[in-house]
C-alpha cells in the first residue's frame, strides 16, 4: 500500500515536471508564430495579449514579395546537399581506417584530426578568404560549402560505429580473397548505413545553419544562403520583430520538414556517437 502510494507520488512528480518542461520548450516556438502573424504596430504592446487582435499574413507576403527568399532557400538546399554528400565521401574512408586498419601514426593522426573541433572559426576566416580568392571561388556557392568538409565531427561518429562491426565478418571476407576496398564497399558501407545517414543529416543541418562564413564569401544578394538573407530583415535603425519572426519561420520550415522525415535517424546517430564514450 505504502509502496503503491510512493509510486503514485513519483509518477505525479515526474509527469508534472515533464509537462512543465514541455510547455517551456514548446512555447517560444508558438510565440514565434503568433508574433509573425501580426502587424508591427500590434506587436509593440506593453500589455499581455496571447492571441493577435488582427491576425494577418502580411509579413509573409512582404518576405516573399520584396526579397529573394525562395532563391536563398534554393541556394541553401544546393549548399547543404553538396556539403552532406561530399562530407560522407571524405569522412567514411578515414573513419574506417581509424576504426579497423592498423597503420603507423594512427593515434596521433586521429587526435590531430579531432583537435580540429576545437579551433575557433574566427582564426580561419581571413586565411581562407585569401586562399579562396586565389582559387577564384569567392562569390560562389562552392566557396560557401568547402570549409565545412574539414570538420571532423562525422569522422568521430562513423569511427565509433565502424568499431562496433565485428572484425570476424571482415576476416571471413579476407579469407575468401577480398581486399580492403572490397571489404569496405561490400561489408562496411552497407552495414554502416545508419551511421552514415546520421552524419549526412547532421552535416545538412549544420551547413544550413552556417552564418558567418557564407556572409563573407558571397557578395551577390542572389547567392545568399537563407540564414544570411534573413539577417537583413533586421533594420538599420530599429527592429521589426514581426517581420523578423516570419523570416525566421520561413527559414526554418525546411529544417522542420527534414526533421520530421529523418527524426529517428538523427536521434539514433547522436546516441550512437555517445554510447562508447
Amino acid at each position, binding site marked *: 500500500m505504502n509502496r503503491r502510494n*510512493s509510486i503514485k507520488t513519483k509518477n505525479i512528480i515526474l509527469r508534472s515536471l515533464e509537462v512543465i518542461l514541455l510547455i517551456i520548450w514548446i512555447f517560444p*516556438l508558438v510565440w514565434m508564430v503568433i508574433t509573425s502573424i501580426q502587424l508591427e504596430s500590434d506587436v509593440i504592446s506593453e500589455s499581455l495579449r496571447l492571441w493577435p487582435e488582427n491576425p494577418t499574413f502580411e509579413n509573409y507576403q512582404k518576405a516573399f514579395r520584396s526579397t529573394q527568399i525562395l532563391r536563398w532557400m534554393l541556394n541553401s538546399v544546393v549548399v547543404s546537399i553538396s556539403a552532406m554528400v561530399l562530407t560522407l565521401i*571524405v569522412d567514411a574512408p*578515414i573513419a574506417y581506417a581509424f576504426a579497423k586498419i*592498423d597503420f603507423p601514426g594512427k593515434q596521433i593522426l586521429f587526435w590531430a584530426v579531432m*583537435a580540429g573541433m*576545437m579551433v575557433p572559426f574566427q582564426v580561419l576566416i581571413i586565411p581562407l578568404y585569401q586562399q579562396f580568392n586565389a582559387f577564384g571561388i569567392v562569390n560562389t556557392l562552392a566557396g560557401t560549402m568547402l570549409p565545412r568538409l574539414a570538420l571532423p565531427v562525422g569522422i568521430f561518429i562513423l569511427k565509433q560505429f565502424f568499431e562496433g562491426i565485428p572484425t570476424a565478418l571482415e576476416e571471413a571476407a579476407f579469407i575468401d580473397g577480398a581486399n580492403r576496398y572490397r571489404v569496405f564497399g561490400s561489408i562496411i558501407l552497407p552495414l554502416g548505413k545508419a551511421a552514415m545517414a546520421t552524419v549526412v543529416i547532421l552535416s545538412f543541418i549544420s551547413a544550413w545553419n552556417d552564418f558567418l562564413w557564407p556572409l563573407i564569401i558571397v557578395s551577390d544578394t542572389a547567392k545568399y544562403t537563407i540564414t544570411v538573407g534573413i*539577417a537583413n530583415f533586421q533594420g538599420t535603425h530599429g527592429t521589426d520583430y514581426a517581420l523578423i519572426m516570419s523570416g525566421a519561420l520561413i527559414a526554418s520550415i525546411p529544417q522542420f520538414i527534414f526533421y520530421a522525415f529523418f527524426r529517428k535517424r538523427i536521434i539514433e546517430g547522436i546516441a550512437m556517437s555517445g554510447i562508447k564514450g
Partner: protein
Amino acid sequence: MAIPGNHDKRDGIIFSLPFLIVYFMFMVFPLLFGLYISFFNWDILSPGKFVALDNYKRLFTDEMFYSSLWHTIEFVLITTPILLIIGFSMALLVTGDSPLSKISENVFFLPYILSMTVIGTLWAWLMQRDYGLFNQVIRHFGGDSIGWLINPKYAMWSVGLATYWWTAGFNMILFSAGIKQISKEVYESSKIDGAGYFQTLFKITIPLVKPTAVLCLILQIIASFNVFGQVYVMTGGGPHGRTRVLTQYIYEAGFRYFKMGYSAAMAYVLFFIILLISVIQYALLGKERS
C-alpha cells in the same frame, strides 16, 4: 590483423587521404597562415609589419582580453553543469514509462535543429524589456519588469537560458542512449531488493551513465568556450561590455578594428586553452577507466 598479403600501412594512407587533403587545405594550412599572421601588425589592406611576439605580449596587459576571457569562463560555468542536469533529467523522462515520452523527446530536441540566428533573435524578442513576452507576463501578474538582457547581473544568465533551450535536447539524446545501455536485469534485481525510484536513480542509473556524462561534459565545454552567436545576436556584448566573450572580442579586433595580427594571437590563445582543457579531461577520463 592477421591477413594474408597485409597492406595495412598502404591502405591506411589511401583511406585517409581524401579527408587529409581537405583537412590540410581548409584547416591545417589556414591555421598555420593564422599563426603567421599573429606575428604581424596587419590591417589586411596595407602590407603587414613584423612584430614578433608583440601581439602575444600585448594580450597580457589588455584588460579587455582578461574581462572577455573571464566572461567566456563564466558562460562555460553557467551553461555546462545545468545543461548536463537538464539533459539528464529529460533523458530520464523520455526513457521512463511516460505516455508522453515520444512527444517529449521530439519537442525537447526540436530547438537544436534551428539556426543560431533564429534562436538568438527569438529569445532577444522574448526577453525585450518593455514589449517582450516574459515581462508582459510578469507585469500581468503584478510584478516589475526584469531587465533580462540589460541588467548586468542577469544578462549572462539570460543568454544561458536561451542556450539551455537550444541545446539541452542534444545532451538528452546522449544521455538516453547511455540509460538505454544499462541492462534490464540490473534494474530488475534492484526492484526485487525493494529499492524505490529515487534510490535506483542514485545507486544505479547515475553511476552507470558516468561515461556518457564525461563525453557530454567534454563536448559541452568545447561548445561553450566557442560561444559567439547567442551573445552577439542577443546582447551585442552589452550591457557595457558585461557579456562580451572572447570570441566576440576576437571578431571585433579582427573585423571591426582590422587588427588581424592581434585577433589571430587571441584566437590562438583561446585554441590552446580549449585544447589544454580537453587533454586534461581526457587524461582524467582515461585514468578512471583503467
